[in-house]
């Protein structure tokens, strides 16, 4: 796996950093400390336009922290994030969304007081305080269309509580799509899904990419991601341990060592 090692060394933090123009989303020496704990240790990566990057690591590797720092839910302790060439480090989460970066939540965050379609409609609402948008129902129609595209067409009027697990995942993705993003960070989309459902969701995500979207998909193992991602980026203890095409990365000794605890890659 010489190529992996090569690229791995080239991208080792501190040796040669990334710049704003290295991809649609670029993180350079991104660092997050909680008290004395370093959750993210000078992590650097770049995602190219219309790429699907798999962000992989064992439980507790710092995947969610990275996610939260990139999307503005946490402020990073150090480092930079560039999105579409613009420095967006430390911006608030809603500003990131407005710039075109959407995310889904691993533990789901639907609003239980409203139907599926109205959950999606909230993401379509303009960030304005006084508006008549939505009165005539065009927002609702667009929300319905998005629901149908992710396969929720039959559950439009159900509340999130009535949805099966796969439905909740689809709703998360529909809500993210509705913000009209250029880049979508998807947190554990396949957790707990049957192989048929994985296939269905994979097709949805691939079609989003075909329509111009860039995707970062987080998961703690790569099973299921193989047919989806172009490149895998493996982290452990908040630092990168390997990077490369998915079918090669599973043979990487460091990756295998990281997963020795019983987790399956």
């Amino acid at each position, binding site marked *: 796996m010489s190529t992996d090692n090569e690229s791995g060394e080239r991208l080792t933090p501190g040796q040669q950093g990334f710049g704003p123009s290295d991809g649609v989303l670029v993180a350079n020496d991104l660092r997050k400390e909680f008290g004395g704990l370093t959750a993210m240790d000078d992590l650097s990566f770049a995602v190219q336009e219309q790429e699907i990057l798999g962000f992989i690591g064992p439980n507790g590797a710092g995947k969610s922290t990275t996610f939260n720092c990139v999307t503005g839910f946490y402020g990073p302790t150090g480092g930079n994030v560039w999105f579409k060439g613009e420095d967006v480090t430390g911006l608030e989460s809603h500003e990131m969304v407005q710039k075109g970066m959407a995310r889904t939540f691993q533990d789901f965050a639907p609003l239980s007081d409203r139907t599926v379609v109205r959950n999606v409609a909230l993401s379509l609402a303009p960030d304005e305080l006084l508006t008549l948008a939505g009165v005539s129902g065009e927002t609702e129609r*667009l929300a319905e269309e998005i629901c149908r595209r992710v396969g929720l067409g039959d559950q439009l009027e159900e509340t999130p509580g009535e949805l099966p697990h796969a439905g909740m995942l689809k709703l998360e993705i529909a809500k993210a799509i509705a913000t009209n993003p250029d880049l979508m960070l998807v947190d554990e989309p396949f957790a707990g899904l049957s192989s048929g459902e994985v296939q269905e969701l994979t097709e949805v995500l691939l079609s989003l990419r075909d329509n111009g979207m860039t995707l970062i998909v987080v998961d703690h193992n790569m099973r299921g991601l193989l047919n989806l991602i172009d490149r895998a980026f493996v982290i452990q203890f908040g630092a990168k341990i390997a990077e490369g095409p998915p079918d090669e990365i599973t043979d990487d000794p460091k990756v295998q060592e990281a997963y020795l605890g019983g987790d399956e890659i």
Partner: protein
Amino acid sequence: MATESDESVLGGSTSAERRRAVLEKLNPLEMPIRFQLGLLGIVGFVLLPTQLYPDQMGRPTNLLFLMMFAMSWDVVSGYTGQLSFGHAFFFAVGGYTSAILDLQHGITPVIGIPVGMLLAGVGGLLIGIPALRLRGPYLSLVTLIIPIILAKLFTLFNNSLPVLAPEGLGGRNGPGLPTQLFGIDGSGAVLELAEGYSGIQQTALANYYLALGLMLLILVVLLAVTRSSAGDGFPALREDEDAVAAAGLDASRFKLFAFVLSAVVGGLAGAVWVHTVQTPSPLGILGQDDIQTSIDVIIMSILGGTGTIVGPIIGAVVFALSAVVVGGLSDVIIPVADVAVADLRPLPLLAAAMATLVFAPGGVLRANIRLGRRILASARGDEYEGEPIGGGDSALGQIIEKYRAELREIIDERR
């Protein structure tokens, strides 16, 4: 976000469609039954004075103001879940500002009322900004203390507050009776009406209809704000701020806006109140122990249904009717305890509020809408499949759940 362009791709000419949809929604014949009942209620309020003597008009007029206050509370607490326990602060800021401008600076209420409204809005900012950083229980404590501090300031600057109120804030008695908006001929009111008894009659009617008009105006504005797609974000704040942020909406801005809107509405109502049927004094505006009005407003909203805007109006009616009914039972003596039912006031009302909390946390409004739907469904021969009564998804349930979660966080931090 490029929603606008996306919509026009799908929906053709949206502005014309939007206009048509708005007009369709305003056609009373096409409205759902609950809206028609609401319109009927408004007609009832318009016709009410025909059944009353002028000296009986005070209570219904006051009731209309209480409705405005309750709606004001509902915007910020019912909708966004930022519980305020001292909302009368805003009513007092509006009322005192306009009264003192009139009494001590000679500024007509026509200007004083908007100024009072603005100043209440500034008060909303002053509480709303720290509220962004304060979690529920702390915010509640702050809002609980604020009207009490205000009442102490009234006493502290009893005789003089330099520049702002040269003759002072008047302590427990208030600064005096400001110019009335309506009055009989020669009373010095802004609008002088007829002489003698017919003047008294006209004044009572004018006060009532002004209050009714103002109440309806506030109702329409608040409904428009909360029912728009932006207002959709308000109840979402109550549930999950991260989800709001993930939808690309600025949670802080929405929370602050709710506070300021609520304060402006409360300040407007408070300012008009002191120029019509209420004396500006701590007892008159803040209520007993400087806190009663704030509590009453919360009870009304809970009775009617938090997070609905319309609910507080119904709650206020229930509130007032119960006071009348209980007050009328002065001859009914409870055995053993040997007290008249009328003397128990406000205990029966508080008991009703507690019963609402336990049995219909969504409030009277939601419970009746559900009941109505069930009746309609069974009339059609269907089974009504709505959410069960007392579900945890109600606005109040969410507010309490949010409060609990925040309390838990605070306690965990202390460990």
